[in-house]
C-alpha cells in the first residue's frame, strides 16, 4: 500500500478508537489508582485518574485478612480442579464425537446439542443438586457445569479438521482409541486446549451464582462471593468488623474494596497475555459451527 497523508476521516477514526480504548480501560485504571492511593484521598474519593499519594497498606492488610485468603484459595481450587476436569471431559468427548465411524456419533451429538436449546431451568437443577447430596459440597459448583456444550462443539469441530488418516495408520499398528487420542491427537491440539483452558478457567474463576445458591458454608465460598459481600451488599467483613475499632482500620475499609478487586483480577491479568493469541481462533471455530 502506498503511503498517503492522513485524511480528516483517518483522524476521526483514530480519535474514536482512542476514546474506545479510554472507555474500556478507565474503570480498571481507576480501581488500581484507588487501591494504591493514600487512604484519606480514597475516603473522600478525590482520585480521578492517577493515584494520589502512594500506599500499599491496603494490600498488606488483605494479606492478613483470613476471609480473603480462604476465599482466594478456594477460588484457585475450584478453578484448577474444575478446569482440569472440564478440559479432560470436553477433549475426550470431542474426540469421540469427531470419529466418523463411531456408531453413536449422530445420536450422541444430538443428545448433547439439544441441551443448548432445552433445559430444565434453575429450580429443577437446584432440586437435583440437592437430591444428589451436593449442597454445601465443593463439587456442587463444578459437576453441574463441568461440560459446556458450546465448548464441546468447538472442540469437536477442531478435532474434525485433523485428518483421520493419521489415526488409521496408528490403528493398523495396533493402537487403540486411548492411545490415538492421547499420543496423536492431544499433541496436535495445543491451541484448542489453550482456548478451552481459558474459557473454562475464566468461567470457574468468575462464577458467583452457583456458589451463591449451593454454598452457604463460608469456609467453602470463593472470592467472587466475598467481593459480592463487600461491593454489592456492602457488608464489612466479619474480621474487620470485629477488629474495626482503630481509626486507621476504618480509613482502610473503603480502600480494601479496590485492592480486593485488583487481587481478584490478578490471575486473569497474568493469564491474559499468554492466551490472547489463541482465543480469536477459538471464537472463530465456534462461530463456524454455532
Amino acid at each position, binding site marked *: 500500500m502506498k503511503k498517503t497523508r492522513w485524511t480528516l476521516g483517518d483522524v476521526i477514526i483514530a480519535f474514536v478508537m482512542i476514546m474506545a480504548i479510554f472507555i474500556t480501560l478507565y474503570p480498571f485504571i481507576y480501581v488500581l489508582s484507588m487501591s494504591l492511593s493514600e487512604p484519606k484521598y480514597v475516603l473522600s*474519593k478525590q482520585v480521578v485518574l492517577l493515584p494520589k499519594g502512594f500506599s500499599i497498606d491496603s494490600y498488606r492488610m488483605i494479606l492478613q485478612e483470613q476471609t480473603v485468603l480462604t476465599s482466594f484459595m478456594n477460588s484457585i481450587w475450584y478453578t484448577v480442579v474444575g478446569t482440569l476436569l472440564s478440559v479432560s*471431559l470436553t477433549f475426550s*468427548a470431542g474426540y469421540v464425537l469427531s470419529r466418523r465411524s463411531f*456408531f453413536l456419533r449422530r445420536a450422541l451429538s444430538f*443428545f448433547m446439542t439439544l441441551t443448548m436449546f432445552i433445559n*430444565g431451568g434453575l429450580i*429443577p437443577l437446584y432440586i437435583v443438586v440437592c437430591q444428589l447430596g451436593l449442597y454445601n459440597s465443593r463439587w456442587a459448583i463444578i459437576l453441574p457445569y463441568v*461440560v459446556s456444550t458450546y465448548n464441546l462443539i468447538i472442540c469437536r469441530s477442531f478435532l474434525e479438521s485433523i485428518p483421520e488418516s493419521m489415526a488409521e495408520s496408528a490403528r493398523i499398528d495396533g493402537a487403540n482409541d486411548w492411545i490415538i487420542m492421547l499420543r496423536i491427537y492431544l499433541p496436535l491440539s495445543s491451541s484448542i486446549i489453550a482456548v478451552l483452558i481459558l474459557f473454562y478457567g475464566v468461567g470457574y474463576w468468575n462464577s458467583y451464582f452457583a456458589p451463591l445458591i449451593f454454598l452457604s458454608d463460608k469456609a467453602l465460598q470463593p472470592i*467472587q462471593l466475598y467481593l459480592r459481600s463487600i461491593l454489592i451488599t456492602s457488608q464489612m467483613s466479619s474480621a474487620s468488623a470485629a477488629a474495626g475499632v482503630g481509626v486507621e482500620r476504618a480509613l482502610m475499609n473503603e480502600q480494601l474494596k479496590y485492592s480486593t478487586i485488583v487481587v481478584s483480577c490478578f490471575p486473569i491479568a497474568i493469564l491474559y497475555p499468554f492466551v490472547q493469541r489463541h482465543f480469536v481462533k477459538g471464537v472463530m471455530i465456534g462461530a463456524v459451527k454455532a
Partner: protein
Amino acid sequence: MLANHPARVEKRQNALSRLGYNLSKDKHLLLIILPTVLFYLLFCYWPMYGVVIAFKDFNISLGILGSDWANPLFKHFSSMVNSYYFPRLLRNTLIISVEQLLFNFPLPIIFALLLNEVRSKRLKLVAQTCSYLPHFISMVVVVGIMMDLLSTDGLVNQLVVRMGGAAIPFFNEPDYFRTLYVGSGVWQEFGWNSIIYLAAIAAVDTQQYEASIVDGAGRWKQLWYITLPSIAPTIITLLIINMGWMLNIGYEKIILMYNRATYETADVFSSYVYRKGLLDAQYSFAGAVGLANSAVNIFILLLTNAISKRTCDISIF
C-alpha cells in the same frame, strides 16, 4: 406367533449382532465418552424431567415422584398469569430484551468496521486487545465498579454536583436501571463480539478492493458496496442467534444490580423465578414461571429461524 416369524427372528438377531459388533468395535470410544454422557443425564436430562414439578405441589421431603399432582393441573400457571406482578414482569422482560438487542447487536459491527479502517497498525492492535479485556472480568466486579462510580459520592455524581446539579442515586432510581444494565453489557461485550466480524472482514478477497480503487471507489463506497455485502451472511446468522436468545435475560446480573427500589423496571421472569423459588422456596410456582419462560424462548428461536430460512435462506438448524 407373529413375533416368532422366522424373518423377524432373523432381523432381530441381525440387529443384535450388529449392536454387539458395534459395541465391541467402539468399546474404547464408549468408555471414553461415558463420564460425559453421565454428566448430561444427571445435570441436563434429569432436571428436564424435573420440570414436572410445575404441575405438582412439590414438597422437598416427598421428592419429585412422591409429590402430589397440582389440582387443577395448571394451577401454578394460572396463578402466574393472574399474578399482580405478571404484567410488570412481561413488560420488563420485553423492554430489556429489545433494548439489549438494539444496542448490543449493531455496536460490535460498527466497531469492527471502524477498526478495519484504522490507518495505524499499532493503534488497531491496542484497541483490539483492550476491547476484549472486559469480557473476562467477572460480573460481580463489573457491577461493583459501576456501583462505586455511580454512588452518590462517586466520580460521576461529583461531576454532576460540580456542574450545579443534585447528586443522583442512580441505583435507586427505576428510570436508570435499564440504561445501566444494557450500557454495562455493551461495555463488557462490544469488543469480544466484534471478533467474529473482524474475521469475516479479513476473509474478504482483497482483489475486490483493488478493482474498486481502479474504478475510482472511495472508502465509503468500498465499505458500502464490498465490505458490508461480504459480511452480510455473518451478520444475519448472528442476528438470528441473538433474536432466538433474546428473552433469555440472565438473572445473574439482574439480581446483582437490582433492589427493592428498582424492581419496578428491573424485575424480569428469570429474576422472579430466582426470588420465588430459591429465596421463598415456592418451587412449583417458580418452576411453572421458568417453564413458561423457556417455552416462549424456544418458540421465538424456532420462529426467527423459520422466518430467516424462508426469506434469506440462512438458518442455524
